[in-house]
Each structure stands twice: as C-alpha cells, then as structure tokens.
C-alpha cells in the first residue's frame, strides 16, 4: 500500500535561519497536501500540490512537488517562533484513503 515518509523527524532551528523538510512516497501520488499542527492543537491544512514540478509559496513557506510526483518538500525561510509545530505531508490514494507521514516537529531557538 501507499506509504508516505518524512525526514527529518525533528528539526531544531535557530530563529532567522532557513530549513527544509522532505516527504517521499513509495508510489506516485495524484497530489500531495501539507498540514501544520501547533502544540496542543489539531492538524490544519496548509496547501495542496497537484502538478508535476509545481511550486507554491505562502509568505515564507515554499512548497514543491517533485517531477515524478513521488516526493515533496517544504522550505521555510527566516524561521520565526510562530513556525513551531509539526508539519505533515499527506497523499490521497484512488480509493479515498488519505495517508499521512510521520511529521517533522520543529522547535525554534530564540
């Protein structure tokens, strides 16, 4: 079955620095979604990528979908304390199943 893997599991970042988290699928994805879960909260949808090679930006966040549609990345520039949380990627299968990666938990040093 479809498996979505994320690395790294933890990311400790100095405030102001950039970082990237990666998502890899064992199968080709029709699309990929990214979610953010703040500490004590529930996952909240951030964005969906559909096209091969697609790049989307949300302020300091840049999302990319691989050419083969089997991987994706989230790059955050100039990290702020508001970026703290766990970032998940998720992929849909053809049978309406939505599978999540294990997530990257981000902490920020002020």
């Amino acid at each position, binding site marked *: *079955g479809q498996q979505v893997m994320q690395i790294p*599991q933890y990311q400790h970042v100095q405030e102001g620095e950039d970082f990237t988290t990666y998502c890899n699928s064992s199968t080709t994805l029709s699309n990929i979604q990214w979610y953010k879960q703040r500490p004590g909260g529930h*996952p909240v949808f951030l964005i969906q990528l559909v096209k091969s090679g697609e790049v989307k930006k949300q302020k300091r966040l840049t999302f990319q979908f691989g050419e083969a549609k089997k991987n994706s990345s989230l790059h955050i520039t100039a990290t702020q304390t508001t970026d703290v949380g766990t970032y*998940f990627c998720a992929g849909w299968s053809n049978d309406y199943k*939505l*599978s999540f*990666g294990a997530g990257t938990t981000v902490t920020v040093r002020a």
Partner: protein
Amino acid sequence: DVKVTQSSRYLVKRTGEKVFLECVQDMDHENMFWYRQDPGLGLRLIYFSYDVKMKEKGDIPEGYSVSREKKERFSLILESASTNQTSMYLCASSFNRGRLVNTEAFFGQGTRLTVV
C-alpha cells in the same frame, strides 16, 4: 466555518471496556476518517468512510470497528480496550469530489484516551 466535533477531549477507560468515540461534522462531508497519533509515528489511519454505511479499513484496524449510520456522524469503537490503545484519536472529514479531485481534510480537536 467547518466544524468537526469529537465527543470528549479526555477519556479514561479500564482494560476490557467497550469504548465509543464519537465524531460529528456539520459540513455535509462525504469522507470521514479516524486516525491515532502517537509520538514519532505521525497520524496512522484506522478506518475511513466515503459514504453513509460504507467503511474501509485503514492501516491499523485491528482492535477497532466503526459505524456510520448517518452522514454527519462517524463512530470509532474499541471492542475491548487495551493499554496499547492509549493514544490521541483524531477524527477528520472532507468533501468527496470523485477519485481524481482531492480536497482538504478538516480535523476535530482530538480525544486523548487513556486505558488503565
């Protein structure tokens, strides 16, 4: 605003008890999901449903069952709770626009279940 409501925020149950976790959504979503979240393991899919009375096994269905008698409600049942089912349980829902059009999932606030 979409609202996905889980019946309890915290729950403590004894080993062997039958446990019901309820989830209700108010946006007429076709798809509903149950996940459990454990440290380092992310969100693991237990069961999902793409229509009323339909249910499909996710990745870790053992020890669980579900019920979807009405479109807005999706119940997760632990037939005989065990300590290894202590976890955070998250319900989610989304529209179903066909197999090729995927939509975002909306999550409830979660139920932290402790089995003692």
